[in-house]
């Protein structure tokens, strides 16, 4: 029973963090058809921002704010300098953002070196929950990730800006003829997506080794999340929960490699089922 509670909290933590990383990626893909292979580097930059603020003995919350701001700034710059030249071309966006990811990693290596660094845990210790002891910082991470995710999804569902995002994602030409400035919206969404990735990087920084290639680890799960969720934003949370559940359980009972392969198999099964459903609809 204790193991079940610990595992469930672990799954919840992984899923919340994954969803935070994936939701921005999913919105940019739905809006611009951009396959952003540099998304992991935005996470890494957020972790380094948290590390630098911690090195300067600034409060932990300042690290979160700095990471979000760095993500926002780098995302804006990337959209203006690169992404808007690659709209609606997944092939070009793969090449362009892959190149960008290499450049960003090299720049960080030049600035901070290759070796890994650690960020102090801002909330060490454990708390008792449902009769088991669970790391306090992981609970805080879950609360922040779930809160931010709820805000993002609510903004997309309930605000005029969210309505415009959904309209451009559905039909950019029609949205434009209704006065929606899609290019400006694309900039806001891409920068927001990078800001969320930066925030996620700062949140995981106290739990992992901060190093230039750390973002790659998160890209795998995030892309599986986008693939499983498709263009439905609400499905991102469900997809991330399913992926985290499968991956964590398999990792617990076997090893991390089989955990990843299981998540990949889940994505494959969902895609096949979706194809069958679409084919069935088309021929019905």
């Amino acid at each position, binding site marked *: 029973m204790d193991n079940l509670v610990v595992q469930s909290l672990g799954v919840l933590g992984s899923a919340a963090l994954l969803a935070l990383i994936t939701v921005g990626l999913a919105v940019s893909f739905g809006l611009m058809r951009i396959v952003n292979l540099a998304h992991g580097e935005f996470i890494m930059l957020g972790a380094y921002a948290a590390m630098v603020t911690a090195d300067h003995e600034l409060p932990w919350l300042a690290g979160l704010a700095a990471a979000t701001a760095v993500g926002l700034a780098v995302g804006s710059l990337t959209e203006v300098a690169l992404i808007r030249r690659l709209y609606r071309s997944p092939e070009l966006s793969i090449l362009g953002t892959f190149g960008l990811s290499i450049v960003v990693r090299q720049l960080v290596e030049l600035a901070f070196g290759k070796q890994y660094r650690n960020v102090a845990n801002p909330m060490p210790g454990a708390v008792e929950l449902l009769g088991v002891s669970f790391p306090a910082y992981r609970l805080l991470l879950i609360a922040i990730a779930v809160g931010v995710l709820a805000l993002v999804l609510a903004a997309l569902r309930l605000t005029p800006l969210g*309505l415009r995002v959904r*309209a451009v994602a559905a039909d950019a030409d*029609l949205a434009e*003829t209704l006065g929606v400035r899609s290019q400006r919206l694309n900039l806001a969404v891409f920068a927001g997506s990078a800001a969320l990735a930066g925030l996620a990087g700062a949140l995981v920084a106290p739990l992992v080794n901060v190093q230039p290639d750390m973002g790659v680890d998160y890209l795998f799960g995030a892309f599986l999340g986008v693939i499983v969720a498709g263009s439905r934003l609400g499905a991102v949370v469900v997809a991330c929960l399913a992926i985290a559940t499968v991956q964590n359980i398999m990792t617990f009972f076997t090893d991390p490699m089989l955990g990843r392969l299981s998540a990949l198999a889940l994505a494959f099964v969902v895609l096949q089922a979706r194809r069958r459903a679409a084919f069935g609809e088309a021929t019905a």
Partner: protein
Amino acid sequence: MSARAAGGLAVRGLRAAYAQAPVLFGVDLQVAPSEVVALLGRNGAGKTTLVNTIAGTLAAAGGTVALDGADVTHWPPSRRHRHGLRVVRQDRPVFADISVRDNLRLAGAQPAAAAALFGFLADRGQQLAGTLSGGEQKMLAIARVLMAPGAVCLFDEPTEGLQPANVDRFTAGARAAAAAGRAVLVVEQHLEAALSVADRWYLMERGEIVDGGPVTADTADHVADRLAP
């Protein structure tokens, strides 16, 4: 006459192409404020291409488009919208995965006003637009244009799939828009509906305007003869 001089919609020598294939060959067309103009022609004459080029979703290869005196030829569609252009497209006129109410909100149209034009919209606000029938989707798109402010209205095949009573509601709405000073262009294959609402007409063939004039008692027969195989 310069395109800049005219109010409403003024199209001069407009050319457009899909890939390298030319579709419009120097179209001249004008719709003055308070006027309803019908654009007629067979399938494939280039009517929808003309609408898309005026809307800005297809780039012009030459010529000019002016809205209320401003040359908008190289403006993006969103800027044309802010300058008063309202469009109902023939294909995919609404956002299927967005509710009826939000489809109206996006265009700045009041749901209550839209429901006054087409009553079924009153109690379908929460429904996804994609679950409406084809005719209902067209009515939603028409209401979105007629019930929001804007100097120039373009309707591409607005009566396609509509019941006769709803065709009458559309024509009454289009006439009311013209009476309020708006310029209205109705692209139609359905001769009777188009000529019942229009003050003037143009006939398009193979990407060019080949005929036109004021609507008179003889117009329907004249155009039908031109359209006969």
